[in-house]
């Protein structure tokens, strides 16, 4: 009997955020007739795609009981470098050398740099025992600084219509960014649910000492996870740059907070070991729907922030109440 209620509870926890999302959608459909349309739905998803990419990486990190505050800045730096490489290539006048980049080339370069920045985060956290909060806070500033240096504080614009496809294109009636986000989610879902690495991530978050006593190489797992989050932030950066047809030096500012909000609303515990990528996706969509709905309802942007904050609090409180009952 206990087992049955426990499984039931688990199932409920899994769908808790989905139920919240459905309720939200129903309420908005009643309040405004513009909400429940296919166009608006795709619109919300397209706007949410970037946050889904970042928040998915954040989920992996939070599952190990870590945090990454640098994703917004990493997004900006990678977006800027991708744009810069696409537009100007690499010129080395002394050697009379010019390297041009294809779109695929700049995308890979951006992702690689994102992964490298995340790798560095992971290295600092594991080798020098710097708390993740501090290490990634430093990276937040450093990456933003490099973005400013690279762009000289000016946007890098006019990247061409081919590049714009990534952020604004459609395929099979669905926006390209949504396809990308879906791939990211599938990939992370596969990692967390189907692979050894995923198990190690949960094990470390659940009890790092026990993981160490089980012979798990904690350094390796953590570095991998931070590098993945960096790469996913870079993907977000490329989408943002492509959508705006411009790399903005201040792109992605405070995106880390939206990502953390999505993770938390999705039911992942900040103390690690508990939560799913699926939950985070729900969390991100809830934030997106909320933003969209409040605009449709003509709520002032100032109130929108208050409501968003309230929803985050509510989500965590509901989670905590559920935990206590156990």
């Amino acid at each position, binding site marked *: 009997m*206990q*087992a049955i209620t*426990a*499984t039931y509870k*688990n199932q409920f926890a899994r769908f808790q955020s989905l139920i919240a999302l459905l309720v939200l959608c129903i309420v908005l459909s009643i309040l405004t007739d513009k909400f429940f349309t296919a166009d608006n739905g795709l619109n919300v998803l397209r706007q949410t795609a970037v946050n889904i990419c970042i928040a998915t990486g954040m989920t992996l990190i939070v599952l190990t009981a870590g945090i990454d505050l640098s994703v917004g800045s990493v997004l900006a730096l990678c977006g800027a470098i991708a744009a810069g490489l696409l537009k100007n290539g690499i010129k080395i006048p002394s050697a009379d050398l010019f390297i041009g980049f294809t779109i695929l080339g700049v995308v890979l370069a951006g992702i690689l740099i994102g992964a490298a920045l995340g790798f560095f985060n992971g290295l600092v956290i594991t080798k020098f025992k710097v708390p993740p909060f501090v290490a990634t806070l430093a990276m937040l500033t450093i990456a933003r600084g490099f973005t400013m240096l690279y762009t000289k504080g000016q946007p890098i614009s006019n990247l061409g219509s081919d590049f714009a496809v990534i952020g604004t294109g459609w395929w099979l009636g669905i926006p390209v960014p949504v396809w990308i986000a879906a791939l990211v989610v599938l990939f992370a879902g596969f990692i967390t649910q*189907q*692979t*050894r690495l995923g*198990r*190690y991530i*949960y*094990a470390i978050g*659940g*009890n790092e*000492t*026990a*993981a*160490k*006593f*089980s*012979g*798990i*190489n904690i350094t390796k797992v953590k570095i991998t996870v931070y590098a993945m989050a960096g790469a996913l932030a870079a993907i977000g950066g490329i989408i943002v740059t492509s959508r705006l047809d411009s790399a903005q030096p201040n792109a992605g500012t405070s995106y880390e907070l939206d990502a953390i909000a999505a993770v938390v609303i999705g039911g992942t515990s900040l103390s690690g*070991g*508990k939560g799913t990528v699926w939950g985070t996706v729900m969390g991100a969509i809830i934030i997106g729907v909320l933003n969209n709905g409040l605009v449709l309802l003509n709520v002032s942007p100032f109130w929108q922030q208050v409501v968003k904050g309230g929803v985050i609090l509510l989500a965590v409180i509901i989670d905590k109440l559920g935990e206590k009952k*156990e």
Partner: protein
Amino acid sequence: MVIAKNITKRFPGVTALDNICMELFPGKVSAIIGENGAGKSTLMKIFSGVHTEYEGEIILNDNPVHFSSTKDAEAAGIAIIHQELNLVPYLTITENIFLGSELVNTWGVLDKKKMQEKAKQLLKRLNLDIDPNTKISSLKVGQQQLIEIAKALHVDAAIIIMDEPTSAISDKEVDNLFSIIAELKNQGKTIAYISHKLNELFQIADRFIVMRDGATVNSGEMKNTNHDELIQMMTGRKILIQRSESVLERDKELLQLKNICLKNAANRSENILHNISFNLHQGEIIGIYGLMGAGRTELMETIFGLHPKLSSGEITINDRPIKLQSASHAINEGIVLVPEDRKLQGLSIGQPVRPNMSITILKQLERWGIMLNKKREMEVSRQYIQQLAIKTSSTETIVKNLSGGNQQKIVLAKWLAKKPKVLLLDEPTRGIDINAKSEIYKLIKQLASEGMGIIVVSSELPEILAVSDRILVMCEGELTADILANEATEAGILKYAIHKN
């Protein structure tokens, strides 16, 4: 005078104190002695308001009392100096002494001058020549211990409980401590002194109280007893568990340790383990006994590769020398450890049974080196649940909801699944009920009969005698005895555990 009357304290699965009675007299030092797990610390924690739920009564100067917090106990004049120090390392001596009872002036601002004056006086009484502005973290352990005593003096406690106060201090500091205790005694304070070091007790104590299995078995004047008698009283219990009988043909050496040393992480010039050497044969069960601080757990952790930078010595397995740089090295060599604290080191208790069990064998469960074969994982989990008779409603039950014995079996399962050559068990039955205990003993013997080499570390003598073929005794980081189990007696083992040589 303090009287404990019929006190019973139960923890989940174990009765730590069983209807115990005890009297402590003013102006006397009462030595409280007993094996590990006899219930000494538990009783002291009741006296000092740490444990608040228990049956029975404490009578303080003819009044029944029931403390609901340590503050309560302190207000009633009882101070305890714990085995583990309770000082805030980054605060100064003065700040620590006055923590929670700070003096303020008429403006509500800290009166630092007055507190420092008082702290200085206290330190002087303890013959400590240190500036009261010194941070605790820069003091030696022995000095820290004296600061704890200063705290007790500061609250003017009439009853002072000391739990192993000399476990970490030098001889000179011990002398100083003893002269302070003598002075406190002369002032009419009641002192309870817990220690394993019998020599010390003959020096300092007036009375003795021997505890065993949560009850008082004997008490009297220190001058009317002697060493051997005390040891007899500590151990003379009926043995509930069948002794080890099996004598197998053991000619094949499995694991050899030679001159294993381990440095203290806090003070590298000090050794926790000194030149430990022994061999483990195939199918042999070695029991390692030692008192608190003998280095048993550290030895297990060293063999398991958890102290690569601090340890030295040679380890060979099947005559092949190995270097143990990490737990994963050890595991690859077939050495696994069931750690002392299952909740802290053995399990992720917020997660289900299945992933806890399979964590060690995920590599074997991989298909094409990528994906986990979950069906196979489920089968393995079910198999071990059945084999070890783990009482759980399903493979997906959260470990937290299982009893201690079943949790321990999950830790065992996770390592048995790895099919080890050498199984290290650190306190394998701590805090679990008698049935689960005997099941685990049976399992240990069965595994040995299948050829596994097993080392069991335990602080319970009956357990050591019940499971071991051979018994090693440790004392202060050294191996002091290597006896065949069927030639060993409880008193004999305890003697080696208490004395070096």
